């Protein structure tokens, strides 16, 4: 059952990647990267269940936190002087 969820998440990951490549503006790419990170967290947890190793969940927690830091860092870089 987890592999069904994993396939769905991977399909949506492909769609997010297409948007990241197509995206007309830089912000579209950042948005796609943000969604990609959320989907990566979900696929990591599902992969942990598929292979029967729940250790992957620790990596998923870490990746959730890195996602926010990465998005804010990119936005700060392209838009300095604003909070």
């Amino acid at each position, binding site marked *: *059952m*987890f592999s*069904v*969820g994993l*396939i*769905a*998440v991977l*399909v*949506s*990951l492909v*769609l*997010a990647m*297409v*948007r990241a490549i197509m995206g007309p*503006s830089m*912000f*579209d790419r*950042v*948005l*796609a990267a*943000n*969604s990609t990170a*959320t*989907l990566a*967290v*979900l696929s990591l*947890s*599902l992969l942990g*269940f598929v292979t029967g190793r*729940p250790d992957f*969940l*620790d990596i*998923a*927690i870490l990746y*959730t*936190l890195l*996602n*926010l830091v990465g*998005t*804010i860092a990119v*936005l700060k870089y*392209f*838009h300095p002087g*604003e909070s």
Partner: protein
Amino acid sequence: MAIFIDILSWASIIIGGVFCIIGMIGLMRLPDLFTRLHGSSVTDTLGAGFLIFGMALQSGLSLTTAKLIIIFGLILLTSPVATHALAQAALHAGIKPKLTVDKTGGHIAGED
């Protein structure tokens, strides 16, 4: 009882996967940046919520469930912050949203 939990968890994981795909279809189909934010928001809340609920049902009352709840809470806390920062930065960078109705009269909060 076990079969009941299995069915519930199957349904939850399938609904979660469908919502993930719907959100990303929205990311592809919607016409401009500000509307695409709404599509990504569906994936962040409903897709992640249903998938994690299904996984939590399968693992029962254990440390794994606690970790899944922490992941869900972190996603719920960080996703609006990232979305708001993105929308604000895009607006300040001069990207105008395509609007059919503008109720602000050209006045954005924080501008004089």
